[in-house]
């Protein structure tokens, strides 16, 4: 009897935390690509938070005397045509890019998967539920039928070129992905025997949905989330590149590439190439994290991975 209360005590929770941490490190040792992904994402987040400490110059202050300087010790990545320090601007950029991407993706994930869960749960009931589900799905079809990029530009054009409207555009474009993903998951999960068993033991619809269906449908959503954040950063940059996104002096990778690309012809490659590399590496990092989350969110796959870790130790 006392054991069970010990299960909730502070000490065992701490032990569980230590165990989880050690397990994570073991996984990272065995899967270096996962480690690389986490390292990149962590680096980008650190850059965003500590940008003022890391950046040697103000990101939005132009120094016309030092325009288009090549990479040197004074300006690590050189300066752009207006004389702003490119390294400082790259360091500051994740503040904008990550905010937009995270907010846009989170909104679309929460709204999309909630609607998807409801649609999936009531789709097979017949009557009004099926009709409503069909309507929602066709609406999602229409949303997805638009070319993503044109749709996003149109939204920004309508709502104006502000941070909020870019976030809204990204949320709108991504929501159908989560809606479909969640719906297909819920359709499969709701026919599982444990859902029925829960119903048989007297659980309400809401309880079944919250306790059984949504947690069991989350693994692909979580994996999609990370990939999608990377993809949203790309979309933000692309919007800025064509001039529909973040406005000029604000440090943002896409607009930096756009500002610098005329200079490539005349041989000054650094204003475009460095933000481009930063962008590519960041997106790659989020994709790797997505792959690792997919494995770690599923207890059975996590267990299989843990088993393979243990076996690898034996011969050594």
């Amino acid at each position, binding site marked *: *009897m006392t*054991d*069970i*209360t010990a*299960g*909730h005590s502070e000490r065992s929770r701490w032990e569980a935390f230590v165990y989880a941490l050690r397990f994570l490190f073991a996984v990272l040792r065995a899967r270096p690509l996962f480690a690389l992904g986490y390292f990149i994402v962590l680096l980008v987040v650190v850059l965003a938070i500590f940008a003022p400490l890391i950046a040697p110059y103000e990101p939005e202050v132009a120094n016309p005397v030092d325009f288009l300087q090549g990479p040197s010790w004074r300006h690590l990545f050189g300066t752009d045509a207006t004389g702003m320090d490119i390294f400082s601007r790259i360091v500051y950029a994740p503040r904008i890019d990550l905010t937009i991407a995270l907010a846009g993706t989170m909104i679309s994930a929460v709204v999309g998967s909630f609607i998807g869960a409801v649609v999936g749960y009531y789709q097979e009931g*017949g009557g009004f539920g099926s009709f409503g589900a069909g309507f929602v799905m066709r609406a999602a079809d229409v949303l997805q039928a638009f070319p993503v990029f044109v749709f996003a530009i149109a939204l920004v054009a309508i709502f104006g070129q502000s941070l909020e409207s870019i976030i809204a555009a990204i949320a709108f474009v991504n929501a159908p992905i989560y809606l479909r993903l969640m719906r297909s998951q819920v359709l499969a999960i709701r026919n*599982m*025997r*444990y859902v*029925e*068993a*829960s*119903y*048989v*033991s*007297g*659980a*309400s619809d809401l*309880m079944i949905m919250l*306790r*059984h269906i949504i*947690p*069991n449908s989350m693994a692909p959503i979580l994996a999609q989330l990370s990939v999608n954040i990377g993809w949203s950063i790309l979309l933000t940059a692309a919007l800025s590149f064509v001039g529909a996104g973040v406005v000029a002096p604000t440090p943002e990778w896409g607009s930096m590439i756009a500002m610098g690309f005329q200079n490539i012809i005349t041989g000054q490659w650094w204003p475009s190439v460095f933000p481009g590399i930063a962008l590519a590496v960041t997106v790659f990092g989020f994709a790797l994290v997505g792959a690792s989350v997919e494995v770690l969110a599923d*207890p*059975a796959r996590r*267990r299989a991975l843990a088993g393979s870790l243990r076996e690898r130790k034996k011969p050594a």
Partner: protein
Amino acid sequence: MAAAKMTVAVEAGAPGSAMLDIAGLNVSYPVYEEEPVRAVQDLDLSVRPGEIVGLVGESGSGKTTLARAVMGLLTQPGRIDDGSIRFDGKDMRALSENQLRAIRGRDIAMVIPNPRSELDPLIPVGKQIAAVARAHLDIGRAEADEMALDMLKAVHIPDPTRRFRAFPHELSGGMAQRVVMAISLVCSPKFVISDDATSGLDVTVQAQVLDLLRTLVREHDTSMLFITRDIGITAHFCDRVAVIYRGEIVEFAETASFFDNPQHPYSVMLLAAFAHNPALRNKWHKPLASTEAVAGRACQYAPRCVHREDACDERHPDLRELGARHHVRCHFPVERVA
């Protein structure tokens, strides 16, 4: 534990005292542009407090449909056409969904097969037991956890404190079945429906699990409807045995009476199928067992019956009481098996 201790002897056939009383139940599944499939036909069945009734039948005989009808869980498009289901004095068909939900898991529990798929893969099994207790009993988290742990001990799971935190994929089939039993018994229900609960287990584990289930049911003075396709199990396990064929009860008797003197040719065939003597097996089994639909009023079993006579094709037999509480639905009940 269960409130009032009642012995089987107390009730003497008074209909009000039955825990579950099914009368004239008809369940059908409509089929497009055809006659509906009548899965359960004019079925009467009662289970007394503390009694274990076995329900034996082959695939498609209506066992599961009956169980689901009792729980109010018929799968679409099945529907109850007629008849009454009274549980503990309450008319189950008249209850609202909310009232049914309060009864399910609390007063009636159901054990369905494939134990592992009945457990949510993301929740530790102890928590799943506790969740059912919390949903029905007015208790806190710690108390529910304690009840769940007690249940894990009661179903003889080795190292219960560790298993409490185990995920379903970490358990063997036998252990998962024990957990499922713990879930169904945690609220000390008055009635348990076990639908083919042991079908996925090997024989040794099955014997242990059944033994345990019976002990627990007896301790809690719970009644049980034990649905199975294995007639052998019922001999040791049940107080009374009902044989269902094509949605009809064809024989219903005390276990001893049933196995001493089975009277319906179908029951005899089921028993003979287990016999080691091939001559006995063949004697009661038609090699070309027809499954053709039985027209109109004939006996349902006539096409497969080795004792078929003209009367079998003309009149549908009623369930008659032959001998002490031994009911048989046959015009020409079997006198001697061998």
